[in-house]
């Protein structure tokens, strides 16, 4: 049974699985029949090093153009190798209307001459007006691109970008039907306003001083991750299930959310959060099942302040559905303050808690910390796992050792549940 005896349609179907530019070029050379069959592939991708060893006179732009033009109806194009603006324009003039998925390594963050070329690579993307998915790597979004509206675009992902507020806000406005938006590793944002009625997943990661302002109006939002903002306003959150707020560069100053009754997972991380913001989040997330808390300091201004006491009983009473709890360093210390466990009602119980992960960094207040660990075990009737991670201890040699011994003894007594890392 020879491959040449397979009917054309079958050969075309087999070859439609070949998408790597290099493989496509090789298949084109096998026979005329194979070359004709390659016209029916649906997707083409070019790796970063696809044209590292050009053996002929043509450059990457021309080769990609030749391959794109040979395909009847290209639906997906992924280009990671370097290319020019005119190359991109030529490819999209051929395949623009049929493309539903476009992924490009724009690579225009470094070179100054490229930065101000007109039209820009970003402008050219507008020719693929029927896109459903657009992913851009290493892109400059400093001028509003000359785009019409991308009515079909559902997914927009930008990784590694330099942005200007007006331009990125305009980009988002040109994609009104997005369900998923990712802006990762982005610099230059100060204030971003997202008004997308169908957005369900949003992940934002902003570099810089950590003082960005975010306003998000998306009533269907289910999952939101934000890094690098100090003011966050999300008024409609009836469907929000997963929320993660972190700020490694600055202070989380104000959080303004709608009702968070559907919230199952909340993560609060960062160097510094204003105390009011922390209390606000904990108060709203009363039905949360998994809570992750790792904030180093509090304080409303530049001065970093330690946390005030968090009452153990109040905390667990206000989060009765809590199943999994991650608490680290300074916040764990705050839960261990002297008065937390003074007035414990005999009826008090932590009903749903099954897993606890604790990071301890300092041997200060060792007695209170042990008491809190014991209380978690005592009142957490369903507790199955407790993992205690001990990081580099500050303070004197002896007190650190003593504390470590205490924890080991505690672990020994409850071997089935406790684990030390």
């Amino acid at each position: 049974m020879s491959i040449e005896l397979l009917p054309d349609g079958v050969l075309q179907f087999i070859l439609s699985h070949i998408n790597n530019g290099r493989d496509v070029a090789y298949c084109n050379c096998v026979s005329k029949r194979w070359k004709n069959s390659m016209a029916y592939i649906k997707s083409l991708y070019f790796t970063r090093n696809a044209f590292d060893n050009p053996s002929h006179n043509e450059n990457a732009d021309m080769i990609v153009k030749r391959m794109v033009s040979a395909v009847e109806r290209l639906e997906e194009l992924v280009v990671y190798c370097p290319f020019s603006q005119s190359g991109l324009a030529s490819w999209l003039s051929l395949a623009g209307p049929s493309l539903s998925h476009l992924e490009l390594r724009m690579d225009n963050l470094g070179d100054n001459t490229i930065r101000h070329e007109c039209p820009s690579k970003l402008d050219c993307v507008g020719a693929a007006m029927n896109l459903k998915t657009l992913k851009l790597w290493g892109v400059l979004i400093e001028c509003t691109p000359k785009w019409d509206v991308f009515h079909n675009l559902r997914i927009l992902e930008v990784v590694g970008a330099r942005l200007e507020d007006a331009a990125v806000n305009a980009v988002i406005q040109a994609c009104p039907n997005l369900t998923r938006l990712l802006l990762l590793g982005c610099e230059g944002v100060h204030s971003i306003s997202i008004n997308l009625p169908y957005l369900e997943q949003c992940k934002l990661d902003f570099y810089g001083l950590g003082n960005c302002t975010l306003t998000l109006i998306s009533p269907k939002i289910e999952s939101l991750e934000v890094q690098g903002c100090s003011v966050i306003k999300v008024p409609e959150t009836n469907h929000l299930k997963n929320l993660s707020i972190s700020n490694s560069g600055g202070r989380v100053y104000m959080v303004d959310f709608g009702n968070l009754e559907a919230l199952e997972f909340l993560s609060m991380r960062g160097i510094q959060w204003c105390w009011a913001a922390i209390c606000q989040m904990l108060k709203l997330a009363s039905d949360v099942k998994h809570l992750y808390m790792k904030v180093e300091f509090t304080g409303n201004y530049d001065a970093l302040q330690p946390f005030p006491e968090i009452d153990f009983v109040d905390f667990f009473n206000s989060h009765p559905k809590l199943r999994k709890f991650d608490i680290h360093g300074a916040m764990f210390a705050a839960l261990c303050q002297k008065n937390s466990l003074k007035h414990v009602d005999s009826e008090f119980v932590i009903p749903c808690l099954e897993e606890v992960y604790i990071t301890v960094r300092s041997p200060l207040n060792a007695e209170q910390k042990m008491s809190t660990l014991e209380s978690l075990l005592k009142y957490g009737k369903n507790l199955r796992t407790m993992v205690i991670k001990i990081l580099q201890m500050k303070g004197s040699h002896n007190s650190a050792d003593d504390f470590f011994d205490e924890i080991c003894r505690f672990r020994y007594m409850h071997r089935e549940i406790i684990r030390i890392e």
Partner: protein
Amino acid sequence: MSKTVKDAIETIPTDEINSISLSLVRSEILTKVIEYCKKHNSAQMSDVDLMDWDVEFANVHYTTLFDLVLSANYMNINCLLDLVCGKIADMIKGKTPGEIAKLFDIKDVSTYEEDN
């Protein structure tokens, strides 16, 4: 699982069915096709195990793969067609035109001046 067989069953009145004609499928290949259909119809294996089983199933000489492709095409069994075509495509990927021609014993290799 086979749309061809399903259509045949649906169009021929039940009391007249003794056999359904699958004239283009050789018996050894039909055995393998039946083996595939039985495995995929039984609810016994997990998705991961089934994928591993598929890999083993498709690990045969390419001439058998071509026969399976034709049978799956004729019998209209989409998942088997996808599996086998994907496997043949995997055998093609990463090979130069000369290597492809040698692997599948293709005689009339053209000499187009393609790049890379």
